[in-house]
């Protein structure tokens, strides 16, 4: 039991179980509005430079920041934009 606890702790510290889990991205966005708002701010920055939130550059940012693979980063972006900044392009 102790070993399992240590393993799970290491996963958390090591970023393998980041803020956003694999299959509950929508719930995660709802529970972490501050992070979503921060992402919206970054998306607006991208937009001001003529870069879309759908672009590889923006998705790489989401992927890096949240330690997500590219597909999960796209899904997360869709939820964040839909819930918090629908005017982002």
């Amino acid at each position, binding site marked *: 039991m102790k070993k399992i606890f240590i393993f799970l702790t290491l996963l958390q510290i090591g970023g393998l179980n980041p803020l956003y889990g*694999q299959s509950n*991205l929508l*719930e995660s966005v709802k529970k972490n509005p501050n992070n979503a708002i921060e992402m919206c701010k970054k998306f607006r920055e991208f937009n001001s430079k003529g870069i879309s939130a759908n672009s590889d550059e923006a998705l790489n940012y989401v992927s890096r920041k949240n330690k997500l693979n590219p*597909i*999960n980063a796209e899904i997360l972006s*869709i939820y964040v934009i*839909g819930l918090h900044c629908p005017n982002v392009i």
Partner: protein
Amino acid sequence: MFPVKYFDTYLKLKDGVKLISRIWIPEGEGPWPALLMRQPYGREIASTITYAHPTWWASKGYMVIIQDVRGQGDSEGDFKGFSQEANDTSETHSWVRSLKECNGKLGLYGFSYQGLTQLTGNEFSEPPDCLSPAMTGVDIKEHWCSDGGAFWWYNNITWALQIAALKMKREKNFSGWEDIRNNLENNKHLREGLNLIKKYDPDNFIIKWSKVLDQKKEFDEIKPLSSWLKKPMLIIGGHWDPHLKGALDLYIRSKSIGGDPEIIIGNSSHLNWWEESQQTLLNFFDRNLKKVNPHKISSTKQKKIWNISLQEWDNIEKKSLNYEFSLRSAGIANFEIIDGSLLLNSESDGFVTILHDPWRPVPSEGNHLGPNPGIFNRFEVDRRFDVAVFQTNFLKENIQLLGIPNLYTSVSCDQESFDICASLSLVNEDNKIINQFSSGFLRVRKNVINEERNYKLKFQPTNITLPKGNKLRLSIASSAWPSIGVNSGCDANNINPVTMNHQITTLNFNLKNTIMKIKPLF
């Protein structure tokens, strides 16, 4: 009739190989601007399945050169596909410009393979004055070979057999040609095709592509020359053409390096184009090769895409809404239409489980990869219990979907490889006509068995206005035969017709993380 004459001649390449061309010229005093097509199917045909005969182009004041590429038709050498074309193209351009009948102006035309031969040349070679690559692309994996990693079974097997039959003809192998033809006419080629190609044309590039895809190796890279992509270019694509993504990619590539290409995405399949296509192309060449009659020819650059339902052209750069749809099911969206919902601006929820039985794969027709491309009524297909159906209510207003539909979904599966095959359809008021207008495919490999993962499936780009009073339907299955091959369930050696070793596969879709979003074309 405008008097036109033709003759055969050849270019001797630096390596000694002779490439044969047929040249059509108007009667009278030249020289004329040249239109060149480099093709592998026989110069006499001159791609007349999609283009007006060279006599018509010559009658409009052009010298037309249709060349048999290396190893095809009457040209010498061995045919090796795309990899051979860069050098031969550059040498041919210099040769054409040097001909006494040519006034030095060179335009390129042709579709499919003939589209690709317009885009490859030796570095630093002089670009053509203008070009019109049609139904083509430069990424072998994405534009010639597969959708979402799923090999284009029907398209590539039938194409490879055509190439193999041409080889039999060239080698005067009567029985080989007959064998291929009989299999095609008896529809046995879908099962026997790969073996026939291996038997009669083992070096066929389709065999190579299928192996590269299966073994996850790197495809050869085709690098179009920047100086060529900046020249006046009319890119032609079609809603029902497998290479449509390639046409859009060419547009993006050209724009990204400062080009200002024209693009037309028509209501056309690979082999069946829209009526005014020839006149449009003629106007393009007249504008860029003759620069005469400036008042008679519209100087407006063509940048348009056909609207499938409204039957009219739209500006391809028009901004459209990036609609998002969510999915809901209580678990029986594959049994009861009422159970599967497709909702705008809502939250997805629920689940559905569908089965892939390789003995009876879900048939696939129409759109860009089916045997008969175009709109397809999938009413009967959607009645199957291995197809999950999600549908909107009657739309309260018109909705235009202009872009690339993307489906994001969570799946767990009991095999190491599985397919997700999705289609979008416009449903009429009585639910009887289900007009499928866009399809997408995804082959998942190295799946961790029974572990849920998120996946993304890209559909064929589309432009359709869903009329008020109709419905939008999303259908999801786990096979699409013969558009793509039947998945064996195994990661390796998975490009074959169905065998008794193919596994029955169960896919569990968690709809919570499932969403369909229409993303812009560019």
